[in-house]
């Protein structure tokens, strides 16, 4: 059984406590171990660590990190084995309800657990790795009744893959996020009638490979620039009215049509799970909805780090791992007393850049910057101030852009703010190098 572990040997005092035992949390624990930190604890609210990967039984994980294609549980298991082999404590069935810091900077992580009650765990640094949640019907406007049968795609995935039940038989999917696409295929394989995927934007929000493998291969239509404009049914959803959208994304009801269905799945985006971050009063980025972090992935609370989907929503778990290893390393170094000068360069999102993480940089170190574009563009040039530019074949909002910045690059820079822009490539003249 995967990651089954009781808190038999937890010590009460730690160097690094990681909140969340999904891919980000496991990566952070390993990163902390690599940094030389000794006492590391991962707290997870489920009975088994692994996070949302455990319900992602499809393959497609690990292509970047392991250079092979794994299922979600396989990817989780590889990491969990490393975590346990590295002598990291895993405290499962435990819920973190708060973090307090005393005047010396020592932190108390408040944890609830059935067997141990409410405990305060002392630690030098903390890594937030709680992942994300799905946007719901309330976060967009879908008029109509409020029957049963309207689920987020992730909840439907849990019903099918973890509990062995179907959310319904005749399915309409709103939003073309990856989980929605994966569930279109999953439910088609279970014999459900998947009537179509409707996306309000003129392009999909899912990875291209998922459009091909999950929709095209199963003959499931994708309707772009179309949305669900009304929900019908008293007890159970009976049909939806869908309509193409005009300018301003307003549905054009004069061109609407009805589709009979018993289930509506929503795959309309993910938001960092910021319950704890908000409770701690961390500075949050209004675009990512996650904490603002420095180049060491440290939040506005000293000694408190964040990584993975709680920081910003990633499309591939491989990048979560990469980021988490870094956050864990910095948290581990912090626990061992390493203090770095504050970042002195602010990173801002310019043209066609929705956000970039981290929000600040410091010279003299290598940086990995994660960003997303606002709109698809091809071909284009990614510019970091006037310091560097990189030609990109294409950018789409669904695919995160990763940019490595070499240690010496910022040494030449004298300003205090760098803007990142994604601009159309002019006549293909830009070079592939910086």
């Amino acid at each position, binding site marked *: 059984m995967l990651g089954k572990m009781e808190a038999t040997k937890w010590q009460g005092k730690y160097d690094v406590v990681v909140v969340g035992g999904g891919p980000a949390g496991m990566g952070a624990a390993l990163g902390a171990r690599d940094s030389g930190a000794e006492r590391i604890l991962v707290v997870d609210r489920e009975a088994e660590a692994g996070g949302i990967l455990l319900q992602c039984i499809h393959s497609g994980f690990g292509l970047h990190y392991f250079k092979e294609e794994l299922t979600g549980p396989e990817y989780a298991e590889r990491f969990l084995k490393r975590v346990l082999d590295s002598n990291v404590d895993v405290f499962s069935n435990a819920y973190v309800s708060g973090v307090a810091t005393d005047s010396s900077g020592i932190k108390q992580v408040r944890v609830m657990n059935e067997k141990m009650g*409410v405990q305060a765990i002392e630690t030098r640094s903390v890594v937030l790795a709680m992942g994300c949640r799905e946007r719901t019907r309330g976060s967009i406007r879908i008029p109509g009744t409020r029957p049963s049968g309207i689920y987020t795609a992730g909840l439907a995935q849990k019903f099918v893959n973890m509990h062995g039940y179907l959310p319904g038989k005749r399915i309409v999917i709103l939003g073309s996020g990856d989980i929605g696409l994966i569930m279109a295929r999953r439910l088609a394989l279970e014999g459900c009638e998947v009537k179509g995927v409707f996306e309000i934007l003129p392009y999909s929000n899912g990875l291209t490979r998922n459009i091909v493998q999950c929709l095209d291969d199963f003959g499931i239509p994708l309707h772009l620039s179309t949305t669900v404009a009304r929900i019908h049914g008293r*007890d159970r959803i009976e049909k939806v009215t869908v309509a193409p959208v005009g300018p301003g994304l307003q549905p054009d009801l004069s061109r609407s049509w009805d589709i009979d269905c018993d289930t509506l799945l929503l795959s309309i985006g993910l938001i960092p799970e910021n319950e704890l971050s908000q409770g701690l009063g961390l500075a949050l980025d209004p675009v990512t909805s996650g904490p603002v972090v420095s180049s060491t992935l440290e939040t506005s609370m000293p000694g408190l780090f964040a990584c993975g989907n709680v920081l910003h929503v990633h499309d591939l778990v491989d990048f979560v791992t990469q980021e988490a290893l870094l956050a864990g390393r910095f948290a581990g170094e912090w626990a061992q007393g390493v203090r770095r000068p504050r970042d002195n360069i602010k990173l801002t999102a310019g043209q066609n850049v929705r956000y970039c993480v981290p929000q600040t940089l410091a010279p003299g170190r290598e940086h990995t910057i994660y960003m997303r574009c606002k709109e698809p563009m091809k071909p284009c040039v990614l510019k970091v101030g006037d310091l560097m530019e990189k030609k990109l074949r294409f950018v789409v909002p669904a695919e995160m852009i990763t940019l490595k910045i070499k240690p010496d690059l910022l040494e030449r820079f004298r300003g205090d703010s760098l803007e990142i822009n994604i601009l159309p490539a002019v006549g293909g003249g830009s070079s592939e190098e910086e």
Partner: protein
Amino acid sequence: MNHHSSRYDVAIVGGGVVGCAIARELSRFELKTVVIEKEAEVGFGTTKSNSGIIHAGHQSPAGTLKGTLEVRGNRMYDRLCEELGFGFSRIGELVVAMVPEDLAVLDELKKLGESRGVPGLEIWDKARLHREEPNLAKNLLGALYAPTAGVINPYEFVFSLIESALANGVTLEIDSPVEKIDTDNHGLTLHTPHKSIQSRFVLNCAGVFADRIAQMAGVGDFSIRPRKGEEYMLDKRLKGLVRRLIFPVPQKTTKGTLIIPTFDGTIMVGPTACDVDDREDLATTYEGSDEIFNFVRRLCPSIGERDTITEFAGLRAVSSTNDFIIGPTKIKGFINVAGIQSPGLTASPAIAEYVVEILKKEGLSLIPKKNFLTHVKGPARFALQHLEAQKELIQKDPRFARVICRCELVTEAEIHEAIDHGARTLDGIKFRSRAGMGRCQGGFCTSRCIDILSKRLNCPPTAITKRGGGSWVIKEMDS
């Protein structure tokens, strides 16, 4: 179908807040009382969509029964809250002046309220208003402050009323729409799909269906027109944006579109007021949301659609007289308690006393019970407890350490408690425990709640419903 027959002193048709308040009031006496509810649980009709406001009593028109019962009802809530343990807080309300002409209306409302005995009414000038509520629009000109107005969780209230009534011997029949009523010399017989129920008195508390129930009994002298109200619940990040209920001056058909700081701290905006024909039209609309947000932004500019976590609609039972219709009819024993629109929630405990007086006049003998239980235990509400109290709860029951709903921090013990107290559906659990009410809207807890509910009700997960009837949640896989 197994057609039982039972005989009661009083049968209450409709388990909304009015029916349940009356049931609890009658349970003080040596009587056989039954509540007959068409839905899977009580309070699943108009009550659950209520704004949850306990009005001070200065807004209903002069000379109306609803105005009188509103003020009486308001005064009863402190004791009810103490006895029944539902959430109630007298946060006060402000009727704000948006244009100079409104200022005169505030004075009139103050006089009307004072003539009814509404205590503590004050006119606030512009400076006072903005000092007390700094997030309101800067161009608001002043306000009428009513300190006795408050907020409750309407579903919590109705659940505690029925629980008290059941503890004191009342019978509850759920999933039982009344389809036919026979009258004869012995009394009235109500026919539901499951059984026939004989009763000496029938109280028609059927909300938007009250005219149809009256017609079944042969009383056709009024009609009910549903008036739909849409409400939008905002994310709890806005908690504290306003501290009091914010009303515009009363509009023609309603008290207007409001900003409601709910008992749980989240801000709710609404309701609309739109007459509809369909008595089950609970659909929200683009028009409704535009109307609400455009208006509310004039009261408080920082409120916007993007903070909505959920929306819903309810139907007010507006009678053809535009007032409460409470009293005996030409059919002996058949008593209307109809047309209970706003301020029906506020008035409901006063309505209950009023109806008991009517029953007495109609010849029902009321012998007080010696062993009437006044108190019921409210929910534990783990999330609201201090650390030490939480530790104690977990020590007593480790299920308090298992978090089922992460957004509202609802624990497994509280889900079991909700089921102990009568929850039979996911909505029943939600309204009792708050599991699924937060910003993820059940994404995390739904499968956990299904699991617990199916074990406790000893039925397969596929038999669990959202709110009874055909609202199934999951299906078996084809093997």
